Structures are given as structure tokens and as C-alpha cells.
């Protein structure tokens, strides 16, 4: 049995960042990179299922990106993934979630897992699209925002709850294999032990090219994407009226706001 977990190396921005020369992205010098928070939960879910299973399960982490992405894949290995696969080709640069999904679907065809997990969204670009588009290219059943899951590897169906707006859950049964996007809070992701981090450093990361997946440059990059970035810019700054002064002065103004509200509502 096999569970494929799609992960992304996301970028947070340094406090004083600058845009790239062409104005279409942030200068990567200002990126602080890490494993996408959602993917931490989907990896943990796969590892938990593996640990609870009576039949052997391989958890395979896959990411699309250049070699610095190995860092997040090693993190996945340290947290319990059995194997890590990375796909890269310079033509992939500039891909949107649809093009990335085409690559992930090709990996899934190659790996033939029993289930695919992806995070609901990425913390940097927040498209909430990659996992579900991957399902479309595979023509697999799919569901988004799974916050509770009952699945035994090899089972014909899984039962899950998707987290709706306003504190409501919706229970659904789905045929397997399927692609599920996993929500924060579905579990408590573990920390990697020093020992497992050391072991992960010695494990190989399998690198695949587009050709290995029978894809061409036209399938990825701008040609294979459903949108193209025209420009990035600083949005209008927040409209919050800043309360200045030291903490005591700020608290006093805040207390006045509270008292005014209580006066109004009393």
C-alpha cells in the first residue's frame, strides 16, 4: 500500500523585501523558506495511517522544485516519510498550480498510490487549487478541506468530514483511490527527533525530470499554466489608525475605547 503526499516549500517574506527587477515577483533573496504548514498536517496524517495499519504502507513525499527543495523533503523523511521524490526541470519555472498539478498527476501515475494527500492551500500563494487539479488530471474522486479522516489503506472507501464555514462539518464517503486536501488541525504534527533528522540526511532523494514523467516543456511553465503574473506590488497599506506611545499610553487609549463601547452598549 502507498500514500503519496504532495508537499511544497513555501516562502515567507523578510520584513523589508524588494521586488524582482521585472516586477513580477519578490526578489528571492528576501524569502524565508519552509515546509508549507498545511503539508505538515497531511504528512502527519499519512504517517499516522501507516503506523495504525496492519499491512505495510509506504509514505512517499513528492515536491516540485529545484534542489533547495530537498530541505523540506528531508524534513518529511525525518517526520516519517519512507521515500522522497523531487521533480524539476528549468521549464517548470513560472508554473501556476494547474501546471504543478499536471506534474503531480504524472508522478501519481508513475507511483500508483492508494491515496493522495495535499494541503488545502499553501501559506504563500493560497490558491487552494493544486490538490484538486491533480485529481482532475488523474480523473480520481476528490474532496477539499478534510478535517477528520477514517481510512484504512487498501479499503475501497474512506469516510471523512470536511470543514465548512461557520463551525459546521459535512460527513462524506468517497471511493478510493482519491485525492484529499487536508486541513490544519486534523492532527498534531510531530517534531522530528535528532536521530531521525540524522537518518533522513543520509536517505536518497529521487529526482525525476519531465522526460521521466513523459511530460514536455509545453505542459509546464507559462505555457502549461492557467494564469500569468503581470505584476506584483505593495497593496494599499492598512487603514488602521495607529495608537502611538508606550505600552501604558496605548493601554490607556484602549481602555477608553472599551469604556466608550460599554457606555454605548449599556
Amino acid at each position, binding site marked *: 500500500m502507498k500514500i503519496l503526499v504532495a508537499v511544497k516549500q513555501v516562502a515567507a517574506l523578510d*520584513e523589508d523585501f524588494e521586488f524582482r527587477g521585472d516586477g513580477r515577483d519578490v526578489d528571492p533573496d528576501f524569502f524565508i523558506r519552509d515546509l508549507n504548514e498545511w503539508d505538515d498536517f497531511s504528512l502527519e496524517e499519512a504517517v499516522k495511517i501507516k503506523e495504525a495499519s496492519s499491512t505495510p504502507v509506504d509514505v512517499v513525499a513528492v515536491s516540485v522544485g529545484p534542489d533547495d527543495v530537498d530541505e523540506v523533503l528531508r524534513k518529511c523523511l525525518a517526520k516519517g516519510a519512507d521515500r522522497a521524490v523531487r521533480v524539476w526541470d528549468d521549464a517548470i519555472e513560472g508554473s501556476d498550480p494547474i501546471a504543478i498539478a499536471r506534474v503531480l498527476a504524472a508522478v501519481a501515475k508513475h507511483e500508483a498510490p492508494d491515496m493522495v494527500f495535499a494541503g488545502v492551500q499553501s501559506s504563500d500563494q493560497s490558491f487552494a487549487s493544486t490538490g484538486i487539479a491533480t485529481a*482532475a488530471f488523474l480523473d480520481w474522486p476528490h474532496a477539499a478541506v478534510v478535517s477528520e479522516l477514517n481510512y484504512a489503506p487498501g479499503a475501497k472507501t474512506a469516510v471523512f468530514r470536511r470543514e465548512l464555514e461557520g*463551525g459546521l462539518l459535512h460527513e462524506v464517503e468517497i471511493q478510493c483511490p482519491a485525492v484529499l486536501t487536508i486541513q490544519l488541525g486534523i492532527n498534531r504534527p510531530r517534531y522530528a527527533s535528532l536521530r531521525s533528522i540524522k537518518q533522513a540526511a543520509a536517505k536518497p532523494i529521487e529526482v525525476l525530470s519531465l522526460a521521466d514523467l513523459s511530460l514536455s516543456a509545453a505542459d509546464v511553465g507559462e505555457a502549461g499554466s492557467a494564469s500569468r503574473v503581470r505584476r506584483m506590488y505593495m497593496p494599499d497599506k492598512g487603514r488602521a489608525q495607529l495608537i502611538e506611545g508606550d505600552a501604558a499610553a496605548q493601554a490607556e487609549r484602549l481602555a477608553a475605547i472599551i469604556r466608550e463601547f460599554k457606555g454605548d452598549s449599556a
Partner: protein
Amino acid sequence: MSGVLIIAEQRRGELRPQSVELITAARGVRREGDAVSIAIIGAAPDAFIPSLSLAGVDEIITIKVAAVEFDPETVEGAVAALIAERKPDVVLVPHSVDSFGYAAALAAKLGLGFATDVFRAQRIDGELVATRGGYGQKVAVEVDFPGRSTVLLAVRGNAFKAPEQTAAPRITAFEAPATASRSQAREFIELPAGDDVDMTGAEFILTIGRGIGEEAKVGQFRELADAIGATLGCSRPIADAGWLPKSRQVGQSGKTASACKLYIAMGVSGAIQHLAGMKHVSTIVAVNSDANASIFGVAKYGIVGDIFEVANELRRLF
């Protein structure tokens, strides 16, 4: 290729309010003379006709399907058939939990231009341009869709105001081919209360976020909330970590704090889902050490500073 097609959402017999905000979004993307159609999919779609009969809608398209509640493959099948027949140049859907489940699949299968979480949509020299957030809402990203005859946009909630005036659009029933769906919806489950708090009815909420750093700090903010007469709430990471019950979580996926009028957020950076769930509050005060935190974008008042110092000083005043 013409016209704007809106896909409305319904759940448990009620229209999702985001659906009608798209009518206003359609105004910015339609070409002169183009019709705006709004489609509603359900087991009894006619029931939604009155709430969709709003100014700016030329046509309501009812699509009757077997599934009573949202099912991704049913919606994909129905919308794909409708797009094939109508060939709209823009399709608008709410950026919502339901659309997370089907919009990207539809875009991938049909080869549509596609962007999500769009808060501005316009035509620049005739070309469709959508704006969304990037890098945790720190930047705005303009995207276009070269060579795509149909573009699907998932539009952020509260980015557009729903029309208030009613109208009498024409009604069309559309026959969608039956879909053999591979998933089966069962029942809805309300989030368990967890403790005796009622976030829905609370008028004054003090919320703590990741900025409190550790569970041991929860107690002092609970005490502060009591002292100032606020209900203690929390952002998602605090509830996910189990530091406070899920019933205390506010934001889009937490309890809807619909009665809230004064909202003090301490150490809440303001993930988009949190902000979306609190935008209706008239007075938001954000306290955060990061002057760039997105929450300052929706707050009325901002305090850039150490939340513990401000909390301690505030406690002294009550």
C-alpha cells in the same frame, strides 16, 4: 464567447451569501452588452429564484440535480455542460470551501483560465485582469489569462457588496447530464460547544493568537478578558493546539461571531480566513508586534507593540 456566468452556492436550503456578491463583481468584467447569468444547482433549485432576483442579473438558470447537498463531481458535471452550451468568457464562483472542492478540477479539465481568492477583477484594454494576494497577503498579484477563451475566477468573500435592489430576470431551466458521483454526502455535524461559551452572541470579544507563544500564557488573557468584560476567543492555531476549545475559535471556519461589535485581537497576525470571518465587526483593535501584520489592514485601531506589556498595562486599568 460572451457573457458572465455566476455559479451560486446553497447549503441546507439556504443561499450562501457570497453568491450574490458575485453579481457586483460581474459588473467589472462584463463587456458592453453582455448578459449576466446566475446558475443555481440543487434538488429544488426553483426555491432560490426569489433571493437571486437582484439588480444586475439578466437570467437565472436553474439546474436540478439528484444530490441535495454539495457534491464536487455533480457540480463539475453540471457547470461543464453549462459552459459547453453557453461559452461564457467569464465564470465567477465564490472562493469558499465548496469551490475549493471543484473549481480547480473544472479549470484543469476544461483548460480554462483560472485564478482564486480574487478580490479585484477588471478589464484593462479589453483584457481580463484579476488581482489576488500573495505571500500571506503581503503583496498584491495581478494575473491575466493569455489565450484563454473562458476564465474561471473564484472571488473572495466580502470583496464586493451584494446588490440590494431586486429585479425580474428571466428564468431558464437547464438540463444537466446525470453524473455518477464517486462520493456520497452523509450528514452535517455542528461543531460541539466544548464549553459554555456562546461566541455567536458575544458583542465584545478579546481574541488571542499565535503571538501568545505558549499555552501557559492563556490564563492571564482569560483573566484579562474577564476583567474588561470580554468573551475570550482565539484564532485557529490556538484551537488546533488544544490551548482553548474549538468553540472559542473565531474566523471563517470557527463560530461566526455575528453579534460582535468590539473585537480586540492580540497576537493575531490575520490569516485571510480569520479576517474574512471578522470583517463585519465595526471596531477592530489589533495589537501586534509585527507592524506588517495583515490584521492591520482590516483593523480600525492598531497598536504596534508587545502584547504582554499592553495586556499588563490594560489589566491595571480595570
